[in-house]
Structure formats: structure tokens, C-alpha cells
């Protein structure tokens, strides 16, 4: 489906530039967060301590980016009083950066857990499911950012639906870890850390889902949060690619 969101063509060229710049900033922030997640996962899996330290401290950069984008959004709201698609774009960006910042927080947690597990000589590499979950979440985040940048509703809806798989994977990891803790109570502390890392990944999936919902709102003008996607899909059958 052709996207009907087009941020150019305003009578004011400066306005076009401002919106374009805003979008680029979000892309940059997305890239930053993506790398954090990647580094966090790598640190966790390879017990790479310098990398883990870096992840734990690099969140400041993401936070600063969020504040900068927020400021720009406020400026546009005040100066341009955007309406319709422009308004939705700014609103979606304000919410998206909030979720991206949370993703950054979760990635930072991965780094901290990696340090903890290393200090207690436990290796995450033992849990292949976490590896699998991490890969899935990374894919989901990258698809989400892609959908956002291309304002692709179809891909956004597909990504929203893929969150269910991640939740299922997390449930199975939780079950495994629970039985492991019952079998070997001496390692409960480390196992819990692993569980928390899995939970952080599951959270990142939730945030990615939120962002995809904003994309749907941005393009379609309809809020699909907390509602059944089925209704939207019934209304727009062309969105369902499955």
C-alpha cells in the first residue's frame, strides 16, 4: 500500500526541513538504541566485560538524544501548530522516542546483568533459548524502526503480531528456568539474573510493538493500542499479508 504520509510539499520550506530533520534524529536515536541492544546481547553471550561496561554507561547518550528530540517537537508544536498528518507525526515521534528510551534502559540492564553474571562465574551461553530470544527481539526492533522510517503499516502490523511469538518464547524460558531453580537451589541468584535478562528482552519486544502501533496511528489516523487488531484488519483487508 502506498503511504499517504508525505512530510514535504509544505508551503513553508523551513517546515519541511524541520520535519525531515526531526525524522532523521529519530532514525539516529533508533540506530543508537539498536546498537545498544546488540552490544548488550553480545556482552551477555560472550561475557565481554569491556563491552558490558560500555553498554551500561552509553545510555546517557540515548537519554540526551530523547531530550533533544523532545525539545524539537515542542518547538514545532509551538511554531507550526501542526494539523492532521503533521500533528500525528509529531505526536507519534514524541511517543516513539519515549519507548526507544525505555528500550535503551532495558539494553543498559542487559549490560549490568552481564557484569553480575561474570562476577559470579555464570555463563549465559548455557541458555540457548536466551540466544534465540535475543535474536528474535533484535529482528523485531530493526523491523519496527524500518516500518517507522518507511511509514509502512503492513510491516508494522506484521511486527505487532510477531510480539506474541516473543511472549511465548519468554514463557517457555521462564518455565525452564523455574524448573532449573527447583532442581538446583544453590544457583537461584544467577538463574534469576538470567530470567531478568529474558524479561528485559521481552519488554523490548513490548516497546517495539508500541512503536508499531504508533506507526499505524500515524498513517491510518486510528489508535490501535489496547484494541483488537482484528477489527482494523477487517476494515483494511489489504494490510494483512498473511
Amino acid at each position, binding site marked *: 500500500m502506498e503511504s499517504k504520509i508525505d512530510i514535504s*510539499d509544505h508551503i*513553508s520550506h523551513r517546515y519541511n526541513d524541520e520535519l525531515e530533520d526531526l525524522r532523521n534524529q529519530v532514525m539516529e536515536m533508533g540506530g543508537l538504541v539498536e546498537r545498544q541492544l546488540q552490544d548488550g546481547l553480545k556482552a551477555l553471550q560472550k561475557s565481554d566485560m569491556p563491552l558490558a561496561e560500555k553498554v551500561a554507561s552509553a545510555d546517557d547518550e540515548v537519554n540526551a538524544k530523547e531530550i533533544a528530540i523532545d525539545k524539537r517537537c515542542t518547538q514545532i508544536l509551538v511554531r*507550526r501548530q501542526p*494539523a*492532521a498528518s503533521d*500533528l500525528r507525526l509529531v505526536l507519534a515521534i514524541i511517543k516513539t522516542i519515549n519507548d526507544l528510551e525505555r528500550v535503551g534502559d532495558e539494553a543498559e540492564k542487559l549490560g549490568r546483568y552481564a557484569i553480575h553474571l561474570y562476577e559470579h562465574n555464570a555463563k549465559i551461553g548455557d541458555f540457548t533459548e536466551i540466544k534465540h530470544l535475543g535474536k528474535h527481539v533484535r529482528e523485531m526492533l530493526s523491523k519496527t524502526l524500518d516500518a517507522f522510517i518507511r511509514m509502512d503499516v503492513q510491516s508494522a502490523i506484521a511486527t505487532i503480531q510477531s510480539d506474541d511469538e516473543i511472549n511465548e518464547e519468554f514463557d517457555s524460558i521462564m518455565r525452564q528456568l523455574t524448573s532449573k531453580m527447583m532442581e538446583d537451589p544453590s544457583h537461584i541468584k544467577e538463574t534469576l539474573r538470567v530470567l531478568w535478562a529474558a524479561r528485559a528482552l521481552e519488554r523490548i519486544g513490548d516497546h517495539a510493538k508500541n512503536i508499531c502501533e504508533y506507526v499505524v496511528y500515524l498513517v491510518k489516523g486510528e489508535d490501535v493500542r489496547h484494541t483488537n487488531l482484528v477489527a482494523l484488519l477487517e476494515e483494511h483487508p489489504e494490510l494483512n499479508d498473511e
Partner: protein
Amino acid sequence: MATENAEEKSNKVDIEQQLGETVGEQFTDEQKFALRNVDVYYGDNHAIQDISMDIAPNEVVAFIGPSGCGKSTFLRVLNRMNDTIDICRVSGDIRLDGEDIYDKKMDPVLLRARVGMVFQKPNPFPKSIYDNVAYGPKLHGLASSRAELDDIVRTSLKRAGLLKEVENRLDEPGTGLSGGQQQRLCIARTIAVSPEVILMDEPASALDPIATAIIEELIDELRENYTIAIVTHSMQQAARISQRTAYFHLGKLVEMGPTEKIFTNPDHTLTENYITGRFG
């Protein structure tokens, strides 16, 4: 020069191709005004082309659109102000509470007492404040005594939020007031006749932001008792005060719907282009 003209022409055709049926919800369950297939011609110029819409009781409807889109012309159809223009011809079915207002039996004087109008430029008569407000009631014989007339004048001024400011100088000329006060005087003058509908043709376009805010607040209060149709150039104003918004383009009604919908997610590309400030 010639190529430029050709370009302009082709551009226009494009726009006309985009103009189809009105989108959105132009009809309502309850109707104060019901307009069907309204056409207005100025000589050979087809100024309003096949517009149908409803205006519900006690709602504020905003008409927006670029200059020359016919929104003011359309507003003037509602109280037959176009009658005064010789070359203007109106066709279609226009009903106020079920009565055809362009019927031969409908008296334009009576219609204008029922459908009042406030104009773009404040236009008080060069008379005292009191006489300005009292003119309508006197004209229609609405007050049987001086005391009753006094009462009508004071209530109207109060409703228009002007009484406090002018209480002690009712016999001073209305033209001596500030622009915002003059416009409120004109609103008081209009509501002194107790119309059912008030038409406003860009009532705040000549006023500063504070005076505008006061007028907007007034419109919100007036909605309890009157049905209001307002033409405005300011989209923010339309967004602030109206329940439904209609977007006109080249004499056609492009889109009409709840104001929130029009300003967050309009259905028509032309509406979207207009309210977001894009080339249309």
C-alpha cells in the same frame, strides 16, 4: 508567459479531478438547516456547485477553505443576503426547520429576523450604543414599552459580554468603541432580535488575539441558545470553537465532519493539504 498559463491550467484540471463527491459526515440526525443540491451562480460564474449538508440545532459549524472557495457566498445563502445582488441566482432545496427559505411564501425580512448575521468588519450604525442594539427590536416591534426595550437592550448587551464595559455610556456613539467592543456590539445587536441561527462571516479577522479570544468564548456561550455557522480563515479558530467543520474548495464542499476528525485525520487529500499548509 504562454507556458506558464498552460501549466496553471493543467494544474487546475488536476485539482478538479480530485474533487468528487463530498466525503465525511455532512448529514445529521437532527436538522436546523437542511440543504440539498445547492447551486449558486454569479452571472456565468458557478460559485457554489451542488452542495448538500445539514446543520444541527445548537451546534457551531465552521466553514473553512482558501479565499474564493465560496464559503462566504454559501453562508449568505442561509439568510438570503445574496438576494441584494442582481446577478446572483440560487437553486436547490434549502430548509430551515423544514420550511423552504427560497419559497415565494418565505419573506426575506422575516427570515433575516430568524437568521441573524455578524459581519467581518464591525459595522455599528453611526448611532448611540443603545440605539444600535434597540434598532432591531424597534424595527420588528418586539418591545411594547420603553421599559421593555431597555430590558432587551441590557440583556442583549449582557449576553454579548459588553454590558459592564458600556453600562455608563449607552448614549455614546457605538463607533467610538474599540474594534473588539464594536464586534460584540454587533453581536448584541444581532441577538437583540432573538434569532434562531447566527451566521458569522469571519467575525474576528479584524481583531487582536485578546478580543478574538473574548469573541470565541462568547460564541461558545451562545451555542446553548443559538445555532451558529461561522466562516473563518483561521483554522485554529475553527478547531477551537466548532463541533463540525466543512472544507470548501473551488465552490464545492470537499469534506465535512466532526472538527477533531478534520483536524487530526481528514479523509480527503485536499483537506489535508489545506489544513497542514501544503501546496494544493
